[in-house]
């Protein structure tokens, strides 16, 4: 079975993001960029399926600027077989991303698409569900366990009160939650090998998708700050303050 994984280039998890003073967005110049952490988990899961003999080929897709090729290259170094970069400098919203991916899925015909549940930049948590909708495929979102059985896939999902398990008819979309696996680091030999793996390039126009945003961003501002309070010296003082000053007990 061919497995498609999607990888997004985002501001690194450890970067403290700053809002631009003119309200036009956040500061992205000279900021460290990395693969979205949930997408690393998606790539890892696909590689484990391949290592278990269940997946035959892993295709990593990214939509973004020329530098998104580096993100694909990271996936290739982890163990994906080839890449597809849909190159655009525009901000592409989840709906348009899903439309582009639907075109790629139609060409590639994977049996399973594994995606991160959300990107840590826009925190939308939409694209996997949208792609499933456009393809008419079932979705196993927020996965903490994925088991392939025949053409189907059984997914254990993280839900509000615990875990839920669903059986999906293949082909299907799976989106990853944090505890699905721990992504590996690419080894140096694999990083070298990844340089020779192919990355095909396309544009949104090649896919026939209009990426004009549907949401107009009017402004981006700092959230209201929260001031630090006081340090108390003892447990008795703390309980006294909570009871009498804050009135929360």
């Amino acid at each position: 079975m061919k497995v498609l994984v999607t990888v997004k280039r985002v501001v690194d998890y450890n970067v403290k993001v700053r809002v631009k003073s003119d309200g036009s967005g956040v500061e992205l110049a000279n900021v460290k960029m990395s693969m979205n952490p949930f997408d690393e988990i998606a790539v890892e899961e696909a590689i484990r399926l391949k290592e278990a003999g269940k997946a035959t080929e892993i295709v990593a897709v990214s939509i973004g600027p020329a530098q998104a090729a580096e993100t694909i290259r990271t996936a290739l170094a982890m163990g994906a077989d080839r890449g597809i970069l849909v190159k655009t400098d525009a901000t592409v919203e989840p709906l348009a991303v899903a439309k582009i991916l639907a075109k790629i899925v139609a060409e590639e015909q994977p049996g399973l698409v594994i995606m991160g549940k959300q990107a840590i930049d826009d925190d939308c948590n939409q694209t996997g569900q949208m792609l499933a909708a456009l393809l008419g495929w079932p979705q196993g979102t927020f996965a903490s366990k994925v088991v392939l059985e025949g053409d189907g896939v059984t997914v254990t999902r993280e839900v509000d009160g615990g875990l839920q398990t669903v059986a999906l008819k293949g082909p299907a979309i799976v989106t990853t939650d944090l505890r699905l696996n721990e992504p590996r680091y690419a080894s140096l030999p694999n990083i070298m090998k990844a340089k020779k793996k192919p990355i095909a390039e396309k544009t949104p126009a090649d896919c026939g998708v209009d990426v004009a945003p549907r949401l107009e961003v009017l402004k981006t501002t700092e959230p209201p700050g929260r001031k630090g309070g006081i340090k108390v010296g003892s447990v008795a003082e703390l309980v006294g303050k909570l009871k009498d000053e804050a009135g929360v007990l």
Partner: protein
Amino acid sequence: MANLLVAEHDGAGLKDATAKALTAARALGGDLHVLVAGQGCRGAAEAAAKLDGVAKVLIADDARYAHLTAEPIAALLVGLAKDYDAIVMPATAIGKDVMPRVAALLDVMQVSEVTKVLSADTFERLIYAGSAVQTVRSRDAKKVITVRISSFQATGTGAAAAPVEAVAAADDPGLSRFVGEELSKSERPELTSARIVVSGGRAVQSRENFAKYIEPVADRLGAAVGASRAAVDAGYAPNDWQVGQTGKVVAPDLYVAIGISGAIQHLAGMKDSKVIVAINKDEEAPIFQVADYGLVGDLFKIVPELTDELAKIGK
């Protein structure tokens, strides 16, 4: 035209999330209908009918909605969508699963986890783990919206009950099958609606210590128990206790952070709490920058003292 709120419920009654999302949905203006889809959900529908500002309740009571799996619910919502300007659902695990599927089927770009409704088409939402607030205007004719419930107060009951009308189930696309669930059984309040939350971090060091230190103080306070990602990753606490950017977002009256350093991703899940208490042995820990009351010291000494002190005041 009108707007449709999709209820989160347990069959017999509504989840707190519904009354909170209702507050956001009412801010859109226009008539508001509530959909209760499930199996054996008459009780929830009657509870929804009593909420203030609800003009009509639609009930879809059918086996195919028993587990609120995304594919059949999305098919139902798409069938109902033509009568509505906006479809709204709380951003619970179910809302996050179902609504983007509905949005894509309607060719709408969803507005996820709104924290403020400025008008029928303009909203605030957080990006980058709450590091920035984006004000967005939707250009789509129809809106599909999920609501961050910690940002809205619950709407109370109204003067008269709204009518409850049955709607026919939609064809089940037959793509998925519910296999089972393991829900954590707890006498404690739900994390996302608790008035008090006590959370532990990596410094708690083990699952046994969660039971020995964190849970007793939580139970003393009638609180829900939460955890930082580090504590969950280390196996000290179950996954559904995680508070933060990618876990649950809470805004209780009192949040007690024990042995949590306060990474931005954790703060994203709790910094709207009314009062924050931090207990940490590192006085430089970032959690103190958002805490109203900080206590520097060893949690293994402080937390039992706190449990005892609360007992003294009759907690």
